[in-house]
């Protein structure tokens, strides 16, 4: 069985270490916040200018002046700090954010990522994605392994306009966990019930299988 979105988020949450500052993108990445392991203290950064992002407000307590980068109403936590957008991307660029998790349309086996533009469709803009992928020191992509047509999103090279070049280190999909190495994607873990053959069939980019490949535990 391929992982659900929640399980992808749960698996990524295992990558969190105590003391990490983490930026979570829109979509599956946002769900990671729900699965932070016990005893692991992380601080969430929202690139519109908030460090220490808390949960959604209780009904009736929404504050129009307190939103995250997905424009959702959120709260602060004890120890939160608020700053302008230049400082926010400054701390990302300076490598102070330990981990960034974001979605993608395509990832190439050299770490390129495309996630902002589909030619001939209306372009809404890259928002902070290009800044994040160019500057973050450690990026995990959370996405489905294939697109709705069943085509691989793990490619020898991106077909869509790039968001960033050679910047992705790790990909977690519904089928497995992959590091990006000089030899392309390296499968470290596979989803329960998913075979290596299925992963091979659905991965167009260069793929190797780790010697100690194992089943994902979530």
């Amino acid at each position, binding site marked *: 069985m391929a992982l659900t979105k929640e399980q992808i988020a749960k698996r990524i949450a295992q990558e969190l270490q105590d003391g990490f500052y983490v930026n979570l993108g829109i979509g599956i990445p946002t769900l990671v916040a729900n699965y932070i392991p016990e005893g692991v203290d992380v601080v969430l950064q929202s690139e519109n200018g908030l460090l220490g992002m808390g949960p959604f407000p209780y009904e009736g*307590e929404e504050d129009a002046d307190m939103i995250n980068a997905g424009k959702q109403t959120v709260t602060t936590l004890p120890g939160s700090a608020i700053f302008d957008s*230049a400082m926010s991307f400054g701390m990302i660029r300076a490598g102070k954010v330990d981990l960034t998790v974001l979605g993608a349309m395509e990832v190439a086996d050299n770490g390129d990522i495309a996630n902002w533009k589909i030619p001939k469709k209306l372009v809404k803009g890259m928002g902070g994605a*290009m800044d994040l992928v*160019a500057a973050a020191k450690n990026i995990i992509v959370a996405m489905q392994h294939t697109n709705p047509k069943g085509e691989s999103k793990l490619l020898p090279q991106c077909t869509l306009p790039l968001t960033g070049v050679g910047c992705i280190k790790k990909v977690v999909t519904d089928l497995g966990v992959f590091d990006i190495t000089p030899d392309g994607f390296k499968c470290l873990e596979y989803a329960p019930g998913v075979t290596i053959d299925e992963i091979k069939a659905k991965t167009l980019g260069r793929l190797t299988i780790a010697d100690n490949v194992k089943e994902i535990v979530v």
Partner: protein
Amino acid sequence: MNKVVAGADEAVKDIPSGSTIMFGGFGLCGIPENCISAIVKKGINNLTCISNNAGVDDFGIGLMLQGKQVKKMISSYVGENAIFEQQLLSGELEVDLVPQGTLATRCMAAGYGMPAVWLLAGIGTEVAEGKEVRNFKGKNYLLEEAFDSDFAIVKAWKGDTQGNLIFKGTARNFSPLMAMAGKITIAEVEHLVPAGELDPNAIHVPGIYVKRIFQGVNYEKRIENRTTRKK
């Protein structure tokens, strides 16, 4: 030194058609609602707007799009509205997409008197086309020019008669940067207070950057994406 004006109409009265204007705000959060209304009423057009977003159909910069006042948007994320899409497809509206952190930093650069900055975002992508690339200590950076703007318009939480501004929560976003970048900066505030009421240590934009300030009225502060949890 009198920076206080009566209201939005007076604050924007000398903005001509064809101007480049920065608007503070992220989505609908922290946008200068009063000045946008006054600009819509005034009916100037051919504007270049620098703003992270372009509002929604019936609020924010969307209202200016309705009136076909905008020639060009410089933004990181647009198109939350149908009018925008239609004007873009018909060629009435030009859009220059800029990575969000690059947008913020190019505003900051103007306020700090730096003509250009070296930034990472967009290296190897179409954003880099035509831009100078330079390697510093093993990493490639793009040379990105500071943003010039004739006017910058921001909404702050509190402001004093000297033009000092304090923002609340994430309504801060691009606003202090734009306030510092504008040749003429206009601030509308939810609470206009006498000089001396704000803690000098807690000011986000020193008054030297602000030319006009007024007490805003009737803030709607619309929420774009209301998310809550149950008690």
